[in-house]
């Protein structure tokens, strides 16, 4: 059964090829069928593989499938091989399953859009690349998948390319993630130069044998890999591309920019966790980046009026939680949150997409309202996903994953009280911004009329993901609440469990209690400000400080402005300044010279018959003279 592993990326790739080559000739129905069925087969295969992996675990808790040798030159011998262990197993399962649901959703959602088969071709290529990234057994193949998903992200953000803003957003996403990718490839060079292999397991073994903890080489390597992860996962300071990426189609935002691709950075760090353990300063930096990102993005999410941008900042913030978990060594907690985040965040996006469709492409939450009765299903699932996101205690999955991260940010030897506090504040902010959206969109007076109803292809994914957003937390319950550590135990073989460090006055139960309190405060604030009396929130933004702060947060803490002034403007200025350097003046000179000659020659062609005759006569005289006298 495990032998079928290669089919998981191969089938989406095959259907991408078919759709890319023959997409314009087949009907919309056929395109949707090919696009979704291939992902469905992949999802079924990964379920089968998960089952057989769990029933009869292969020796060493890992299974490698070597397909062929990719390159063989001077000791550099990366193979096209897939490596299956509990970590890549869980990631692949979640990715293929969520992808399938989103493809099903897209089949109906995108039906009126131009380039229907092109959309499915890109989405399939994305799934193929993403699974390659997850299953790769060496860093080079992982990098191939890494760039593949980056390409698909670019193509899909700019999917409606006739609007210039979409193209610009796509370019921004590509360039900003490229900064991280450059750091990452330099990191790969460094690792190969010093350890002589890119095979991940071998690399980790050699690193821990040859490099002492805290020496400069692992710090450099881990920092460079972290650069790649920060770019891809939209963390501080490279987070600016993700909110703009929301101009792409909503299923794309759900799949790529919420559930899967943006968590590739988390996967990369987890995969190479040995390196990060060898480099404590870098690992601490991961925690700090995560903690500050989750708070920063939380504040920004509070001020956005575009429903998708709120969710984008929410994604940045939630990936901040995963980074925080990585930073304190809570690897399993981070992956746990990845899984649950994939469920509820894609659900939020899909439900938001259904709402946006229903009110005629309106993104502004202040222009919606009272949609609770008109769109009961969208309201229900959005509420469930929002509760899971904010961590409604006990019944939602988000509560358990976040509780685990926040608790381990305290209890791990690498954690401290500030990281813990950031996590708790994050929960408060999350509850505040998501319930702000819920209250504004679904409650209050009706402002927008519903023009469109959705069909079963949209309902099935919504309901499925809603159920998962609720129950998937029960696979890993804290000791005090049932003690079911199935998930962390599964990952124990790959990822070292958290050593319990200091406890202090806080126990796990109290930590969870603080989370619940933060959730309730956030919910209460949102209720007071946005439901009970809208004037309060208006008054808050009307004061001078409030207004300034609002604008500052709305503009993403001025990051875009800073980058524009620091990098974009100087480069543009230099390009203008450098227009006439030596090389250019040579080529411009050639052009100028030929233009001069052209003007001179065209002067002689004046249409005067007698002038021509005179020139012919003079020419004859000259040639005769030459012939006679020379």
């Amino acid at each position, binding site marked *: 059964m495990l032998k079928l592993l290669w089919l998981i990326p191969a089938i989406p790739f095959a259907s991408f090829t078919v759709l890319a080559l023959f997409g314009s000739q087949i009907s919309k129905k056929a395109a949707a069928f090919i696009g979704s069925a291939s992902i469905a087969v992949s999802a079924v295969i990964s379920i089968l593989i998960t089952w057989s992996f769990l029933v009869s675990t292969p020796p060493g808790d890992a299974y490698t499938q070597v397909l062929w040798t990719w390159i063989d030159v001077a000791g550099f011998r990366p193979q096209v091989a897939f490596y299956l262990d509990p970590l890549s197993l869980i990631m692949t399962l979640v990715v293929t399953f969520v992808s399938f649901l989103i493809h099903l959703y897209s089949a109906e959602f995108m039906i009126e859009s131009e380039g229907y088969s092109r959309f499915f071709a890109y989405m399939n290529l994305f799934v193929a690349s993403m699974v390659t990234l997850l299953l790769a057994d060496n860093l080079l193949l992982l990098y191939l998948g890494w760039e593949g998903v980056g390409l698909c992200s670019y193509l899909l953000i700019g999917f409606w390319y006739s609007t210039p803003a979409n193209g610009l957003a796509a370019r921004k996403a590509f360039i900003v993630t490229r900064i991280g990718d450059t750091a990452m490839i330099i990191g790969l060079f460094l690792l190969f130069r010093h350890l002589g292999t890119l095979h991940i397991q071998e690399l980790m073994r050699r690193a821990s044998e040859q490099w002492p903890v805290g020496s400069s080489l692992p710090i450099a390597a881990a920092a460079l890999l972290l650069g790649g992860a920060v770019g891809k996962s939209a963390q501080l300071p490279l987070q600016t591309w993700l909110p703009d990426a929301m101009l792409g189609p909503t299923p794309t935002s759900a799949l790529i920019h919420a559930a899967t691709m943006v968590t590739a950075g988390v996967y990369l760090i987890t995969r190479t966790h040995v390196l990060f353990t060898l480099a404590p300063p870098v690992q601490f930096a991961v925690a700090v980046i995560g903690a500050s990102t989750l708070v920063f993005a939380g504040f920004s999410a509070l001020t956005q009026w575009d429903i998708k941008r709120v969710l984008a900042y929410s994604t940045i913030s939630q990936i901040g939680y995963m980074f925080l978990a990585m930073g304190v060594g809570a690897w399993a907690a981070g992956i746990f949150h990845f899984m649950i985040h994939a469920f509820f965040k894609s659900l939020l996006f899909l439900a938001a997409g259904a709402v946006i469709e229903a009110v005629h492409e309106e993104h502004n939450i202040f222009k919606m309202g009272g949609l609770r009765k008109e769109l009961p299903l969208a309201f229900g699932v959005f509420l469930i996903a929002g509760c899971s996101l904010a961590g409604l205690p006990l019944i939602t999955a988000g509560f358990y994953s976040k509780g685990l991260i926040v608790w381990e940010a305290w209890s791990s030897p690498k954690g401290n009280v500030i990281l813990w506090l950031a996590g708790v504040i994050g929960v408060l902010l999350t509850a505040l911004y998501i319930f702000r959206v819920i209250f504004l969109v679904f409650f209050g007076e009706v402002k927008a009329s519903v023009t469109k109803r959705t069909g079963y292809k949209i309902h099935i994914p919504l309901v499925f993901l809603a159920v998962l957003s609720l129950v998937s937390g029960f696979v890993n319950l804290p000791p005090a609440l049932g003690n079911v550590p199935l998930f962390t135990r599964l990952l124990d073989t790959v990822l070292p469990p958290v050593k319990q460090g200091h406890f202090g006055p806080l126990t796990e139960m109290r930590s969870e209690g603080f989370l619940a309190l933060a959730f309730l405060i956030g919910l209460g604030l949102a209720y007071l400000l946005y439901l009970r009396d809208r004037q309060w929130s208006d008054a808050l933004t009307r004061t001078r400080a409030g207004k300034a702060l609002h604008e500052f947060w709305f503009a993403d803490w001025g990051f875009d402005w800073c980058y524009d002034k620091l990098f974009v403007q100087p480069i543009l200025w230099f390009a203008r300044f450098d227009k006439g350097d030596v090389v250019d003046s040579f080529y411009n000179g050639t052009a100028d010279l030929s233009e001069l000659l052209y003007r001179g020659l065209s002067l002689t062609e*004046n*249409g005067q*018959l*007698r002038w021509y005759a005179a020139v012919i*006569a003079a020419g004859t005289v000259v040639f005769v003279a030459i012939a006679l006298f020379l």
Partner: protein
Amino acid sequence: MLLAGILFALGLVGLLARRNLIFILMSIEVMLNAAGLAFVVAGSRWQESDGQVMFIFILTTAAAEVAVGLALLLQLYHRYKSLDADAASLMRG
């Protein structure tokens, strides 16, 4: 020979100086005849019949040329209502 040279030069000057197309055509005729005269003179000088043969050729070409030239001239007059050669200077680069 000298007469031929003088005639040719006269024709050339007429061609360049005159603006009236009829005079230009006449100048060309003068030049052609000058060339013909040169052939005949050269033929008699070296006692060859080729000179006279060439003159016959030149005569026929001249006839054809005049026919075509006059036809073009008529067309030009039709179009520009004048016989000024410089008037027809629209075809410039």
